[in-house]
């Protein structure tokens, strides 16, 4: 287990006031909030910052953490010294018991103590309660949205065993993904969420659908965009060309004088939701390289045949 320097994570001095800690946390939380941030490692950084704040904002935990001394450096191998927290009381306050989101380092220091306090609070509430709803994301290919798919998802369920230790139970769930589903939509799987409390029913699991990036397709809601490169003569004279769609190849009639950027619509060939989306083939013009003398001559002949200034009117 590696030592975590919570002060370094928040970018504050060890003698920072509680206000300074709060300000530093807020600033970083806004920067890395996964719903807002486009930083590549936003989610991991957000959790790290949240964990640092969880410890430093609480005077009890901060004092216990400080007592381990200043000589530790981030990333050093670390084992908590025996009785390192002797004499400290953890009230357990608003710890959500969800665990899993904290590092091993945090778990080793605070996990079991906080869970004990939390379990006591729970026992006090003897009313059966429904378990929490859980959320997970599932990546599918656009093609899966056309045909429907079956996906295995691995879910990590942190639970506490009889001796108060945290165990992560892994389970796999096979899920049928209906065709016509779009990115950003959710499936609700009844009873697959967190376990109930005191004989309460389990919560539900919500799966958010995301499409795997594929350079071939661009998806906008139920519509799909695909690039259609044309030779200059195909674009000028019109042509019948094959277009690759997520359900296979179709023949598309390109009208004469199709400029680059023109969108040719294949009605109903988008995602087969109700109503189905459309597929757009976006024209681009690909120039054949003129290598041989004959090829160069062909372009020169073309230049003579046209009185064309592409920059006219600029």
């Amino acid at each position, binding site marked *: 287990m590696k030592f975590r320097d919570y002060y370094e994570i928040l970018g504050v001095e060890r003698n920072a006031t509680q206000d300074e800690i709060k300000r530093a946390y*807020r600033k970083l939380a806004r920067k890395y909030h996964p719903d807002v941030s486009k930083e590549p490692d936003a989610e991991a950084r957000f959790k790290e910052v949240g964990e640092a704040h969880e410890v430093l904002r609480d005077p009890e935990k901060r004092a216990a953490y400080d007592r381990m001394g200043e000589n530790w450096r981030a990333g050093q191998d670390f084992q908590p010294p025996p009785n390192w927290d002797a004499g400290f009381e953890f009230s357990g306050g608003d710890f959500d018991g969800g665990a899993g989101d904290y590092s091993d380092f945090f778990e080793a220091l605070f996990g079991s103590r906080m869970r004990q306090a939390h379990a006591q609070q729970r026992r006090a509430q003897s009313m059966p309660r*429904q378990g929490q709803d859980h959320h997970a994301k599932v990546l599918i290919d656009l093609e899966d949205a056309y045909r429907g798919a079956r996906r295995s998802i691995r879910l990590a369920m942190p639970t506490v065993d009889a001796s108060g230790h945290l165990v992560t*139970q892994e389970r796999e769930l096979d899920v*049928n993904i209906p065709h016509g589903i779009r990115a950003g939509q959710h499936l*609700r799987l009844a009873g697959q969420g967190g376990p109930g409390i005191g004989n309460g029913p389990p919560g539900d699991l919500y799966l958010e659908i995301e499409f795997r990036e594929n350079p071939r397709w661009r998806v*906008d809601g139920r519509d799909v965009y695909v690039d259609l490169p044309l030779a200059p003569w195909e674009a000028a004279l019109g042509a019948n060309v094959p277009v690759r769609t997520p359900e296979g190849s179709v023949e598309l009639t390109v009208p004469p004088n199709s400029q680059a950027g023109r969108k040719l619509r294949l009605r109903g060939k988008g995602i087969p939701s109700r109503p189905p989306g459309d597929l757009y083939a976006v024209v681009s013009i690909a120039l054949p390289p003129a290598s041989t003398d004959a090829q160069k001559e062909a372009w020169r002949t073309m230049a003579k045949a046209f009185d064309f200034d592409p920059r006219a009117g600029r």
Partner: protein
Amino acid sequence: MSDESRTPVQGPVVEEQIEFTLMELSRACGADEEQITALIVEGVIEPIESSGAGEPRHPRRTNPAALPAARAQWRFSGTALRRARLATSLARDLEVNPPGVALALDLIDEIEALRAMLHRLGR
């Protein structure tokens, strides 16, 4: 837990097949009903307009004294889930108040619309 989980499970598409009650929406967001109600009063999420001739369900047209009774009548479209989750996570993680959440969500919507436009253009 291991064997029964191998049978494929299926569930409804929330955005197309589900209407939430206030309690269900709150649970799905891991928030309490008061937090969701505050977002509704701020106009961040809106209940579905009542189609029948029954009581008006809309909070901003409801007498505040009648709010608790009206709340049991509220229904939310499945599409409210994404917005409600985003709003409650911003409120919880960044300690933003409901007007601040409303502003943030409007800006996020605008950014997403611009990104979608760039994406369509293939940039």
